[in-house]
């Protein structure tokens, strides 16, 4: 890594996880920091780096296979507009996985948020369209609040009642899906604030505004995870819940905030659904539940908790979106896309395994002191039974 030797400050690329450069920070300080962190960053960014490769690879393959359709501005715009809603849910999934849990209810929450917004809007618009339009922001907030409410429900089940996250959120997913079907009668609802649809169509030059929103959310979450005490506690809780407890970290606080934030992000994803397409239904994005888990893991999230990278999630989201639209450009079906998803996931996992093998062989070059033997893992459990 060049950061080790070059004094150039561009040598440390400002990824969302480690950005704003404070101009006041002394150069010396930066150099020292860069050197000390270099090792860790190589380790931490390895998975992100691998996603950069996958991203470039996917893009090149389709750009070469069918440049006329794939590289068209329309297709690029489509990728930029479709990625955010999946990406935001994947970021929420990453947070849950960072604590060592999972949140299966995120897509259901997003749908419920979208249904809430459409119902409120069309309910008000039926009597007074102008009023409904002027209430756009409160109506959208209502959708996000529904998301937060669902997140709170999850967090109570996981952190207070202590249900395993996969079961708790499986339950809430079913409940929320059921509520969505019952309230909509299973049909698709139409109608979203015109302002929101206009926002969804707007672009800053070639970049759709929705995509900008996605990047802003990603940057905020990255800052939250790496630069706030709570974010660090979320990482530590996932890395070793027992040590976190013995370090004075309250798992209840950590889990409660994680699932609540996840709910809020899913609520925002519901808004993004509507910005792209002013319809809401209970079964929208049914395939997203597993897709966002794939994205989270591809993006470098450790399913056992403790490690994740928002930059990796953004790249993984884009890569899968590129493959999806590339398949469309090549006139392949969504079933073939499903196969590709599975192949990519397994290929990346195999790649990980091979790289880990090579690393461990290389790291034997410097064996250092042998790892401490398992210690007294049993002694605490025997303190009460043993009284000779």
């Amino acid at each position, binding site marked *: 890594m060049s950061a080790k030797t070059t004094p150039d400050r561009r040598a440390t690329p400002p990824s969302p996880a480690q950005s704003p450069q404070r101009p006041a920070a002394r150069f010396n300080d930066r150099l020292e920091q860069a050197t000390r962190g270099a090792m860790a960053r190589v380790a931490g960014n390895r998975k992100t780096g691998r996603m950069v490769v996958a991203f470039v690879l996917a893009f090149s393959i389709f750009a070469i296979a069918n440049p006329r359709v794939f590289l068209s501005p329309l297709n690029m715009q489509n990728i930029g507009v479709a990625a955010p809603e999946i990406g935001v849910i994947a970021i929420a999934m990453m947070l849950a996985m960072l604590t060592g849990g999972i949140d299966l209810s995120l897509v259901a929450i997003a749908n419920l948020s979208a249904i809430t917004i459409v119902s409120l809007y069309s309910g008000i618009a039926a009597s007074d369209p102008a009023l409904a339009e002027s209430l756009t922001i409160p109506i959208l907030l209502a959708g996000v609040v529904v998301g937060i409410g669902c997140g709170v429900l999850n967090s109570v089940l996981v952190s207070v009642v202590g249900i395993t996250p996969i079961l708790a959120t499986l339950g809430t997913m079913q409940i929320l899906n059921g509520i969505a079907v019952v309230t909509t009668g299973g049909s698709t609802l139409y109608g979203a604030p015109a302002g929101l649809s206009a926002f969804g169509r707007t672009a800053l030059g070639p970049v759709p505004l929705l995509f900008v929103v996605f990047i802003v959310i990603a940057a905020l979450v990255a800052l939250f995870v790496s630069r706030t005490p709570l974010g660090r506690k979320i990482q530590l809780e996932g890395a070793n819940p027992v040590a976190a407890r013995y*370090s004075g970290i309250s798992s209840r606080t950590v889990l409660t905030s994680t699932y609540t934030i996840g709910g809020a992000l899913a609520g925002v994803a519901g808004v993004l659904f509507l910005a792209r397409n002013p319809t809401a239904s209970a079964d929208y994005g049914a395939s997203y539940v597993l897709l966002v888990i794939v994205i989270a893991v591809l993006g470098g999230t450790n399913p056992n908790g403790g490690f994740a990278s928002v930059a990796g999630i953004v790249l993984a989201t884009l890569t899968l979106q590129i493959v999806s639209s590339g398949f469309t450009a090549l006139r392949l079906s969504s079933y073939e896309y499903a196969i590709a998803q599975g192949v990519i996931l397994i290929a990346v996992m195999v790649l990980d395994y091979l790289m880990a093998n090579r690393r461990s062989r290389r790291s034997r070059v410097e064996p250092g002191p042998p790892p401490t*033997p398992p210690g007294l*893992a049993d002694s605490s459990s025997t*303190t009460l039974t043993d*009284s000779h």
Partner: protein
Amino acid sequence: MASPPTAAVEPVLAVHGITKRFGGVTALAGVSLDLLPGEVHCLAGENGCGKSTLIKIISGVERPDSGEVIIDGVAHSRMNATSAITSGVQVIYQDFSLFPNLTVAENIVLTAEVAGRQKLYRAASVRPKARAIVDELQLDLDLDSEVGDLSVADKQLTAICRALVHAARVIIMDEPTTALTHTEVARLFAVVERLRARGVALVFVSHKLEEVLAISQRVTIMRSGRVVTSGLASDFDRRSIAEHMTGSELDESRLVADLDESAAPRLVVSHLDLPGAFHDVSFSVRPGEILGVTGLLGSGRTEIAEAIFGARPAASGEIFIDGRRADIRSIPDAVDAGIGYVPEDRLSQGLFLEKSIADNIVAGSLDRHRNRWHGLDRARIRATIAGLFSDLKINAPNPEAPVRSLSGGNAQRVVLAKWLATEPKVLVLNGPTVGVDVGSKAQILDLLRKAAARGMAIIVISDDAPELVSCCHRVLVVARGRVTHELSGDEITAEIIHERMAA
């Protein structure tokens, strides 16, 4: 103690001129060792001296670059783990590698059945086989209890029995006495005598020099991949072994700072009570004082510490810090009150193994490093990490290295750093030097003295008497959940502590 075996006996196992390199680093340089039937051979050395690598080579897990392993006069240059087992070499690791969900009898017999390529498992044949071994060693083991419910000592005995099923000629035990009480150690040593009578050669890898000296016939000491010295155990004492291990003279004399007798106590524990764990525990610790708490495993010493830290709060009684009553119902309560706790099991309770040293150091003090926007003040965090990293002399290339890569002594320093970063008023340490090599141990005790000198009140829970003698102003002895003795001044000697603990 039995007389040492004579040199005329043919060794069961001998290694000659073993060299092993990992890349550019030489882990073993021309190491030779021979094990005689019926001897206990102590293999001592600091972490990283190469003894683990040597054991791996003897047990066929690693292959030497040069040199040979000779078992019963047959040289094996390409031994693997399976051929080592069939040749009668057994290693009992610290975690014993037992199946907690199976019974003692099944654990003893099952691996041999599997290794013997038995196609079918006959439950009926298990018990007699296991019974024969347990009887031969005259053990009091319940063959039908599940291993998960056993004490550490009984798990160890189960592992020894399992080794004998494989007709073990050489049994290597990694830190066999670390997790045992004094009575259990005595029991283990009785079993070891019976194993010797069978002609088994035993290798003890240990940090606990006193105990090992009591049972070993010969001692081999390694440092930096070489055998520094080897000879009869009777020619060594604690001090000379430590000197050979560290390569320098070790100061283990009592070194305690004078206390300001008039200072108000920093911590007062008053009539603390938790049914089933401890009763009516009262004591106080002054600023700058190091208080030792000792007792057998299960005496309630750990429970008292965990009650003060809020991990298992007391049912009644009061805790005062600097004269103010602290209502400790949870760990965050204790941390807010200024209490830090270095837990007993550092690998699972103390450390985030996959995280960096830096992340571990600030894990307990994240809220103290907030800036005015409630984010982390990164400059201050860097200063804290860099300061503690160098003050505590943590031996790693940089603070970003993962904690997993550290040796026991360095890992413990990281746990210590985590709590020093919170600037606690009271620091409780449970077994601060368990599994730590001799050199690091002295340094860790020194760090405690320095922390105390800054006005901290320190409680050291330990069953390592020399360690308590070395650093404690007073020592409380706990038995059956009560404080039975308080030792101070000249009363604090290893002999008196042992005597009071056993009483």
